[in-house]
């Protein structure tokens, strides 16, 4: 996808409610990178402890704090169940990051044209 087609997509969406299209947010490199960073290093450590690394820390914190909250509410749930809200939550965080990145790209591109 080129820079011009990305801008075209966002221009069309400005008539709607979102300043950036959902498709563009979902495929944004920021969205995918954030999701991968939160899930992959943590998932590797979950499979085998020695594969935990500093990169797993964000996912580890989200998952562990999530289980602490969930365990306080519903103590009988097995901990593997928390993968469902974990994946949902990290996807949400990734979407917010992707939205912010795409919005910032639009602002930057718009600002450059005005200066020209």
């Amino acid at each position, binding site marked *: *996808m080129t820079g011009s087609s990305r801008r075209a997509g966002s221009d069309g969406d400005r008539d709607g409610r979102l300043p950036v299209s959902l498709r563009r947010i979902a495929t944004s*490199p920021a969205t*995918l*990178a954030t999701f*991968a*960073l939160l899930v*992959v*290093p943590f998932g*590797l*450590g*979950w499979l*085998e*402890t*020695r*594969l*935990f*690394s*500093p*990169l*797993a*820390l964000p996912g*580890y914190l989200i*998952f*562990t704090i999530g*289980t*602490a909250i969930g*365990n*306080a509410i519903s*103590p009988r749930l097995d*901990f593997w169940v928390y993968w469902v809200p974990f994946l949902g939550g990290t996807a949400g965080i990734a979407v917010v990051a992707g939205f912010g990145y795409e919005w910032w790209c639009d602002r930057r591109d718009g600002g450059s044209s005005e200066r020209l």
Partner: protein
Amino acid sequence: MRRRTYLAGGASVLAGIAVSGFVSRPPSNERLLEAAREYPDAGEGSSNTKTILSGTDHETPLYEIDAPNDGPTAMVFGGVHGDERGGIEAAREISDWRPDAGTLVVVPETNRVAVENNERRGVDGDLNRQFPADREPQSELAAGIWDAVEAHQPDVVLDLHRSLGIYSLHREFVGQAIFHSPDARGERLADRLNEDAVPWYLPFHKFTAGKTSLTGPLLFQHAARELGASAYLFETTEFLLDHSTMVELSRLAAAHVLELHGLLEVGGGA
């Protein structure tokens, strides 16, 4: 072009994981474990195997290893709960260790029926609730185990366990904690384990130590109460830790307890 960018990004993330994991991995403590496995310089000492509750369903081996030098007696228990495999496997390995001083006594499968059935409780219920204060042990198995403890008069007792969650983070769970009698060195043990085996990027897995009240019905509490032993209940966790890591933590905990109480000597400190 974009696909190539994504592939390069993915490869970079995986490389970053591998490099950062390798660089920041805690050192473990191979020197201490080597000292535990090797014969001491002063000689081989002696070892023999006995049987607790011989001829009953609960029959289980007890390994007694005498060091060439005088010193304290330490007893290590695994399998008080039959489904806590990390402690059982570590205790089996510890039965091959060679202390530098004193006597090491190991019972790897304390509740053998529960171990065989891979269950927490045995035929008489939870063994670790059958040693009440001011009363006799509450089952044939508990009485047999206690007879063995009294026969050896240990100065140090270590009971190896695992929990499903983390102490003070998950309700009802006690993982990554060391409960100890007031005179034992639980805080030091927790510090050493954290230095050796818990990486900084798993902060909730840091061990915590807590003194026990000695009024409860647990085996280590009974040993501290009745015999004045320095007693430890070691709990690792299954939460985000695999089996080999739980065994490693149990093994390290035992080695540090033996070193802290003078059964192992490591040149230059452990």
